[in-house]
């Protein structure tokens, strides 16, 4: 019994190797989707695809702190909103470069996350969930009262952002592939972070805070850093969503949206990064597809969620791994 594991050689890349492979497969599939859609004479799916990929970015960014740090932020939609409003506000001043807008979204998000994160991190567990909700709602109500950008009614964008002076995003394909590229970049970044020194400490704090303090780490600094990183990455998704919908409204920031992000992560599989992507894809596609089948799609979708929890505790990635497709046990 106990001898067997002891004799095993050190697993060099234990946790994520399988999942990185799974993610690669996903990315290839994503890249092939648009040609397929146009071959099927259904280019419209490219637009839906863009929305899904943008949510995948947000879900993955949330998983970074939720899965690896047990920081369940229930206010992450605020950062989607910051990204989206960065587009609206800058473009109303005639600044429509994507990168400048992303930078602006990141700056806004980093500032907000730094302040609210520092306060929120005094609390833990469910209290953290609720205090992040509180800050998310404050941001939400702030933008509702922002009459200059339509308040509650939102603000519609006359055109998409430019990329270094080109109109790359003007075509749906350009927007799709830009989103995909950013998704991959964010994935690589997150993957590096969780496997780094920083990531190990951050995960350790999730596992046992007191123990980490007792070996000399001050949890606050690590958690706050991760919180800010996650917020910034989420705002990138917001910039893309604004371009996809060509419309910005506080609805991007409501707590429902924060809740949906959490649902995506948990559905996909917490603490796996790939899970965030899978969760976003499955949740949004299923919604789309069930919506076509019946007007009462929430009934089916809800049933699906319940069944997933009851029969596959580690989400979809857990299910896939159990079926032996992406072997990488953790």
């Amino acid at each position, binding site marked *: 019994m106990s001898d067997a594991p002891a004799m095993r050689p050190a697993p060099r890349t234990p946790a994520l190797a399988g999942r990185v492979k799974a993610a690669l497969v996903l990315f290839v599939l994503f890249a092939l989707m648009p040609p397929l859609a146009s071959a099927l004479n259904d280019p419209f799916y490219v637009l839906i695809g863009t929305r899904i990929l943008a949510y995948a970015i947000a879900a993955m960014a949330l998983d970074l702190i939720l899965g690896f740090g047990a920081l369940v932020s229930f206010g992450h939609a605020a950062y989607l909103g910051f990204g989206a409003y960065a587009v609206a506000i800058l473009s109303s001043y005639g600044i429509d470069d994507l990168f400048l807008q992303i930078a602006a979204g990141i700056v806004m998000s980093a500032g907000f996350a730094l302040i609210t994160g520092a306060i929120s991190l005094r609390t833990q567990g469910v209290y953290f969930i609720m205090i992040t909700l509180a800050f998310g709602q404050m941001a939400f109500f702030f933008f509702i009262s922002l009459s200059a950008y339509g308040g509650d009614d939102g603000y519609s964008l006359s055109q998409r952002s430019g990329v270094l002076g080109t109109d790359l995003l003007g075509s749906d394909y350009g927007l799709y592939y830009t989103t995909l590229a950013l998704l991959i970049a964010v994935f690589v970044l997150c993957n590096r972070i969780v496997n780094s020194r920083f990531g190990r400490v951050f995960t350790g704090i999730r596992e046992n805070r007191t123990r980490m303090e007792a070996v000399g780490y001050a949890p606050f600094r690590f958690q706050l850093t991760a919180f800010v990183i996650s917020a910034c990455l989420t705002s990138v998704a917001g910039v893309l969503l604004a371009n996809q919908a060509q*419309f910005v409204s506080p609805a991007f920031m409501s707590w429902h949206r924060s809740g949906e992000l959490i649902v995506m992560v948990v559905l996909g599989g917490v603490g796996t990064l790939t899970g965030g992507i899978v969760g976003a894809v499955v949740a949004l596609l299923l919604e789309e597809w069930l919506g076509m089948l019946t007007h009462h799609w929430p009934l089916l979708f809800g049933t699906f969620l319940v069944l997933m929890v009851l029969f596959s505790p580690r989400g979809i990635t857990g299910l896939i791994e159990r079926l032996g497709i992406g072997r990488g046990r953790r």
Partner: protein
Amino acid sequence: QDVPASANDDVLKIGLIYTLSGPPAALGVQARDGFMLAAERIGEIGGMETEIIVVDDEGRPDLAADKARELVQRENVDFVVGPIFSNILMAIHQPVTSTGTILISTNAGTSNFAGAECNPNFFTTSYQNDQNHEVMGAYAEQQGYQNVFLMVPNYQAGKDSVAGFKNSYTGNVAGEVYTELGQLDFSSELAQIAAFQPDALFTFMPGGMGVNLVKQYSQAGLTSIPFLSAFTVDETTLPATQEAAVGLLGGANWAPDMDNEANRTFVSAYIEKYDSVPGTYAMQAYDAAQLIDSAVRKTGGDLTDRDALRAAITEADFDSPRGDFSFGANNYPVQDFYLVEAVKRDDGYYGTSVKEKIFDDYVDNYADQCAMQ
């Protein structure tokens, strides 16, 4: 402008986009039912084989934008009809109208699209959002009220409502209270009203908020203070408030008891089919179907000539249950507005009833900012 691909086949395709799930669904459901009722009565709309696609925007603007694009780009519809809510309209307006497809709003009528951003592909069969509030302002003015208490939810439409009311009311404002969106309990506000004893209350509380307010208003024994409202006491909320709402006043462009042939047909058919009294939302969607029918017939089923089609729509050649109906230069209606009162009808249902006409052939305040003259 390009002619949409759809225009070339001989099927008339119409996409309905309404909020059909969640708490605010009651309005969208009425609108859809109203449209479908008309479609059923007409049979082949515009004399063409008709296909109607109904989609639910779930009250989410970003989703609505996608759904609208799906209707236009994937389903190649000729008309998009809807939505109920202004934020949804803001989100779908550009995706629909920029492709040359015609968008007919059956409820939301925001000021920007009435004014500076008016668009030849955008029509509305309802009103400009402020108008019902203006009706109540004018009524308060006419009654000589000197001290009106204003209470609206704290969001864009609420603020617009106060602005609309003040547009035609010049008296004093006893108090101006912005309640939380979705507020349950108004006891604190009602206490203020009781303390101020204003000449009247003006409020705009759509949906469940309105039901709560109306019930609590009568429970608090405030019925002696006139209750003026818009979008608060109507056929979507009366089944819930019932007796508590009777006698409360509102501003509207129509009421189900209006005395004309078209209206009698509409209302009785609706009641028969859905076992409830239709509200404005149903009527306006019903008219949208009639409008499309009349316009397409005029063009003889030729959907490729967009200019002709638009011109035909502008003529608005159909019998609206509300009587006079025509389009202004900004494609918003020019119509009459009434003071309505909640009553228990002879057939046992609750509904609104016309009390008096306030505005005749009323043009909205933004029309002159529209460049399409």
